[in-house]
């Protein structure tokens, strides 16, 4: 059993040491239950967060997360994956594809959202009193996220929910780094603009 990996959550994005990860993956692929448990502990919540961001249903997100890890375990044990420092990209590619399939199956499509809708969501969140002060802006941000194009949203979700580096995202999506950075920048600008519109509207009231 290789030395324990350090968990990266709740601050994902800090990749575990590649050598250790390779050791743990090798052990897991040989059927080492403890090693597999470490992999699950390290990544399950990040995969869940990514899927939940898309479907917003905890039960479905957990189901998809489980199926992702079943797929990964199966591939690992059959020698279907060779660790070359790209495990996270591979894992989240599986997760993205599975989540996308599930969304297609549910025929759930993002509807365009304008600032007024975002503001309404913020109002509802504030009025019903069930949300805390911190959660209300998150609802608005979530609404704003749904107005992004699917490719823009994917970059944001892989970056923040998956905690991947830009290089890992570029690997995963098969896109040049420059294109990816431009897309991320554009998505952030759109989100910021929408949130600022909401704040401005609140100030005017």
């Amino acid at each position, binding site marked *: 059993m290789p030395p324990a990996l350090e968990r990266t*959550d*709740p*601050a*994902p*994005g*800090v990749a575990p040491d590649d050598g250790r990860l390779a050791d743990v993956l090798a052990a*897991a*692929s*040989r*059927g080492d*239950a403890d090693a*597999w*448990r470490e992999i*699950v*502990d390290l990544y*399950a*919540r*990040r995969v*869940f*967060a*990514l899927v*939940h*961001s898309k479907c917003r249903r*905890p039960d479905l*997100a*957990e189901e998809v*997360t*489980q199926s992702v*890890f*079943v*797929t*990964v*375990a*199966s591939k*690992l*044990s*059959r*020698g279907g994956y060779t660790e070359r420092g790209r495990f996270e990209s591979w894992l989240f590619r599986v997760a993205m594809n599975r989540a996308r399939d599930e969304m297609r199956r549910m025929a759930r499509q993002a509807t365009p959202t304008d600032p007024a809708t975002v503001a309404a969501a913020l109002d509802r969140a504030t009025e019903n009193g069930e949300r805390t002060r*911190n*959660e209300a*802006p*998150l609802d608005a*941000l*979530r609404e704003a*996220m749904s107005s992004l194009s699917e490719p823009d949203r994917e970059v*944001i979700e892989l*970056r*923040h*929910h998956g*905690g991947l580096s830009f290089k890992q995202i570029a690997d995963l999506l098969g896109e040049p780094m420059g294109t990816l950075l431009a897309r991320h*920048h554009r998505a*952030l*600008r759109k*989100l*910021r603009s929408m*949130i600022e519109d909401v704040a401005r509207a609140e100030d005017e009231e």
Partner: protein
Amino acid sequence: MNAHHDHEFDRINAALDRLAESDGAAAPASLESNVYRASRAALRSDGAPRPRIGWGLGLRLAAAAALLAGTIGVISTLNRAGPQPAPAANVTAAAFETWLALDDLFDDGFGTRLGVVSTDADRLSQPEAEEWDDMEDSL
């Protein structure tokens, strides 16, 4: 968590990180245990890589067996069909056809090795072959 160079987006980046945390927190506390239990069975425990024996090899073996059975049938039929001008030639031709088919099926050299064995066997059964004559002459 993201060391984005562009500080103008610091606030939105931080908000997105909080959103990601919130999405992760929507999971039940038992998420990791549930995922582990669900996926554990997909891992093997013997440690050895699984041999990849698929239908390809099985089908090739079945085809080889069928070819051999067919050839034996042809030979038997030829042998029972009364006097033949050159039964040995027919048998050799049938064996050769089988040979070519086997050679195609086993592209890893098995056909070639089988060919060597068969040729040697033919030579042993034909002591009057030229090689023997030559050897005898040289003695």
